[in-house]
């Protein structure tokens, strides 16, 4: 991965947190409170030792520990809420981008779903575990050094001095070597995925009696994963060792300096007076100096997951919003013309297509599976980008209009609904549609028997996919919705698929009835429907 990308991802994570994470001040305040409580603890411990456990000192010790426990609890709860806010805000943006996206191939859809659910979840650990640890790792060592300085400025100076070599070692271990490790990890992810893939394909592997060979493949990939992971870890563990070394060094330096100072054996003259309570206070705080950095290292996995997630989310979120359609009304059914319109869908090239779809007429786009009928239909609305040529509606160029979705109605192959009742869904077709109009239209498209059969009639609840309705009923419902929108351009994608001959004839009659006041373009396999059309465009 390019180091610049990693930096951009980190900046992007920070901006996400700023925009949607809510107030930032409680976290540093809690970190400082925790550091203060640590200092109070060290002070109370010193008093316990030097004054033989007076009750007040023991009480102070207890109090300091309780404050630390509560600070940790509060920090965890705050971080969880902040993570929740960021996740929800990002998810809303991803969903919006996913639903507004131009049509792509199925693979892109899988990635989008993964992005909206799994990748956004991966941000959770970043904001609930890594980020608080990061805030703490920046503030707490300084705060601890400041507390130590109250007792012994030189001990505090010694602690701070260890930071420079520590940072250097971490940069070396995490820099070039880390980047190499990152590249390895990507290859590793692919190899690790092989196991689950073969498990999913087990029925096929068994049917082809390939289990022995595939087991060998799984074993080989697993061995390769283990070998390569180990070579990555050899480098990665240098940083754990360094952390351990500097944690030990911090304690040892303070102990040696203070001990020899108390003995008066230091080779230089200290500008400060050393006594046992002061030095013990410094020593009791010394382990706290590197503790937040060790916690930060503990959250390294969350950091990696979060950064990996954002590097995949960023292109989706940063994609420019499409311009809002400028065309708001059409007077009467429009003439739609394609002039050398070409597009690509996945790796299928469609067109160039020249066609005139007459105003107020029924036109059909036909062609074999995968020839791009749906894509061409979507291109007329501006939902699939053209690679060349033009689409015009009443002479207005698609590029200038920004899209024709506003002035068109659509009934697609897989109709979707909003959670709500059947009537609600029809009323959502356009503002101002009443329940009566909606039910009336439902009966006109032949949903009467379906409504009568159901106890709740028009109040039958629907989920996204219209579960509970048959395929034919869903298609009719989608058609009713399209006819309810008062616009003169109607695009229908396979309106008669899955229907028997009688139902097909009924729907064709409905479509022909709607033509005249509307320009209707259908994409279809059905010869009967194509035969009823005035204009037929064939895709190869």
């Amino acid at each position, binding site marked *: 991965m390019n180091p610049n990308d990693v930096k951009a991802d980190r900046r992007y994570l920070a901006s996400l947190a700023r925009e949607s994470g809510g107030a930032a001040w409680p976290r540093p305040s809690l970190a400082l409170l925790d550091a203060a409580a640590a200092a109070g603890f060290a002070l109370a411990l010193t008093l316990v030792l*030097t004054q033989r456990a007076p009750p007040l000192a023991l009480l102070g010790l207890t109090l300091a520990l309780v404050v630390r426990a509560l600070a940790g609890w509060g920090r965890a709860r705050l971080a969880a809420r902040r993570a929740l806010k960021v996740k929800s805000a990002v998810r809303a943006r991803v969903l919006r981008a996913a639903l507004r996206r131009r049509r792509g191939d199925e693979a892109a859809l899988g990635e989008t779903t993964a992005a909206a659910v799994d990748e956004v979840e991966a941000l959770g650990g970043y904001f609930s575990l890594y980020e608080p640890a990061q805030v703490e790792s920046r503030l707490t060592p300084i705060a601890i050094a400041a507390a130590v300085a109250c007792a012994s400025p030189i001990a505090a100076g010694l602690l701070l001095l260890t930071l420079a070599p520590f940072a250097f070692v971490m940069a070396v271990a995490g820099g070039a070597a880390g980047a190499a490790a990152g590249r390895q990890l990507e290859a590793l992810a692919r190899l690790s995925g092989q196991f689950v893939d073969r498990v999913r394909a087990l029925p096929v592997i068994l049917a082809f009696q390939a289990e022995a060979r595939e087991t060998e493949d799984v074993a080989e990939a697993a061995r390769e994963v283990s070998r390569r992971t180990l070579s990555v870890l050899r480098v990665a563990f240098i940083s754990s060792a360094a952390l351990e070394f500097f944690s030990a060094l911090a304690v040892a330096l303070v102990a040696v300096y203070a001990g020899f100072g108390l003995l008066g054996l230091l080779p230089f003259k200290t500008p400060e007076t050393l006594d046992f309570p002061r030095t013990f206070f410094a020593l*009791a705080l010394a382990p706290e100096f590197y503790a937040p950095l060790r916690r930060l290292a503990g959250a390294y996995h969350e950091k990696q997951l979060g950064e990996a997630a954002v590097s995949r989310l960023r292109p989706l979120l940063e994609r420019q919003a499409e311009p809002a359609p400028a065309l708001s009304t059409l007077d009467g059914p429009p003439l739609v013309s394609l002039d050398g319109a070409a597009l690509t869908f996945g790796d299928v090239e469609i067109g160039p297509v020249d066609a005139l779809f007459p105003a107020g007429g029924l036109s059909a786009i036909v062609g074999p599976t995968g020839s791009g009928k749906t894509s061409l239909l979507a291109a007329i609305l501006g939902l699939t980008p053209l690679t060349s040529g033009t689409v015009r509606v009443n002479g207005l160029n698609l590029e200038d209009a920004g899209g024709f979705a506003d002035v068109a109605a659509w009934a697609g192959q897989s109709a979707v609904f909003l959670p709500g009742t059947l009537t609600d869904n029809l009323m959502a077709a356009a503002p101002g549609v009443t329940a009566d109009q909606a039910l009336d239209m439902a009966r006109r498209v032949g949903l009467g028997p379906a409504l009568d059969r159901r106890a709740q009639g028009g109040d039958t609840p629907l989920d996204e996919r219209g579960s509970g309705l048959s395929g034919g009923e869903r298609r009719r419902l989608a058609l009713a919705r399209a006819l309810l929108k008062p616009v003169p351009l109607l695009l229908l994608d396979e309106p008669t698929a899955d229907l028997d001959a009688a139902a097909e004839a009924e729907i064709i009659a409905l479509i022909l009835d709607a033509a005249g006041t509307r320009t209707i373009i259908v994409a279809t396999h059905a010869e009967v429907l194509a035969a009823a059309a005035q204009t037929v465009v064939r895709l190869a």
Partner: protein
Amino acid sequence: MSPKALVSSSPVRAFLAVEVRRRRPELIAAALAGAVTAASATLLLGLSGWFLAGAALAGAGGPAAIAAFNYLLPSAGFRALALGRTAGRYGERLLGHQAALKALAELRPALFSGLAAGPPERSLALSSGEASARLVQDVAAVETAFVRRSAPWGAMAAAGSGAAVIALASPAAAVAFLIGLAAQILIGRGLAKRLTDEAGRDGLRAAGRLKDGLNAYALASAELRCFDLVEPAVRALMVHDAELGRAGLRRDDGQAVLGLLQAAVTAVTVVMVAALAAHGPMALAALAVLATLAGLDGAAGLVAAAQQDGAYREAVERLDEAAAATPAADPRPIDRNTPITLDGHRLAAGERIALVGPSGCGKTRTFEALLGLRTAPAGRLRLGETPLESLPIGAARPLLAHAPQDARLLTGTVAENLRLGRPDADDDAFWAVLEDAQLAARVRRLPEGLDSWIGDGGEQLSGGERRRLSLARALLRDAPWLLLDEPTEGLDAHTEAALVAALDARLTRTGQGALIISHRPAPLRLCGTTIDVDGRP
């Protein structure tokens, strides 16, 4: 390791036990290194406290006391402990991971062959995304537990060395320290699951609903745009997001409470040790309180391991259930000409038979039973004279080449998928079956032809193309019977006609028989015989 090693009351535990034995030297070294690290950290802080108090006393006692104070030994101790802590940590991490990674490289193939040899319905259940995702999570949980094997040893070293030096100041304080540690471990074991498990399950369910909803809406972006439904759809989906968020918050809050409880136990322990040790000599008291702090810190690994223990046990149980292998089937070769009898019809070699019946009557299940992907129903299928159900699972597989309804492709290249049909086939054979499956032109357009990567489960191909590749794979297999389940579903009339004609020519040429399920007329026209399936489960 052979699949047989998985036969035991808990095959996964047995497997891990074998691996632990094999990796014993590395694991012992890792545990020792972990113990050195933790003990060094504990002793370093304790020694520092003792050294400081001793130096303060000697400093106050005048030049003679200073001269008598042996500071060389503690200084050497500091160096040794700092070094021990650093080297120990690196060694523990590396050796522990090395042993774990080598052992676990064997876990996946062992599980896989266990799954393959297991009861037939299981493999079908695992082909769903959720079941296989669960399996992968469980494997990961077992792997994590294996990697963490050295953590308890390090933690015990921290506890042991801590208790030992605290006991120098006050045996009672050492007991208090150990009781505190035990309480933390018990809290971790007992509460971690209860506080977070249910929330985790709710979260998974909400994530599933969110994915389903988004998949439905994303396929209909044109409708959403035309009816201005994008924002309402986002709002409808964000209801699932809120459920998912609430579940996550419950889990995180549960963890926060756990942290709070453990911090409370730490507080009680530290105060007890301080109160009990403070009455001894100051140097030893300083040693004791600082060793307590370091000891509790070092034992954090044990507490974390205790928290994950429940998840680990559950994962092992589920894996045991998944991978418990029945003894491997008898590999006795079967005569290619063994006749198959289906519902009383003895299938003649080269016959083409349509399986018909209303949807849901069990046509696909009949195929799966023949293939040994589910238990054969009693009395319906025979191989030769023997009822299929009394033969080893999958006995009929050598006779069959299957193109299933759900075309499951391997993640890999076109050629890798075809090779499943015949491992030793050459490119010419590949192209021949691709031609027959009406997919050759498409594959030729792919950037690297046969060697093109077709993505996760073949996702870079369309649904119809995946189905045709699956068909090509079945055509490549040298078996007397083709089982075709909806071979032309989703194809346009022209492609369907070409495919059916190619199939006809191929079957005539090879003399292969075929069993065909289809609700479309064209493929059924290939068939001379019809069997009405009534295989209600």
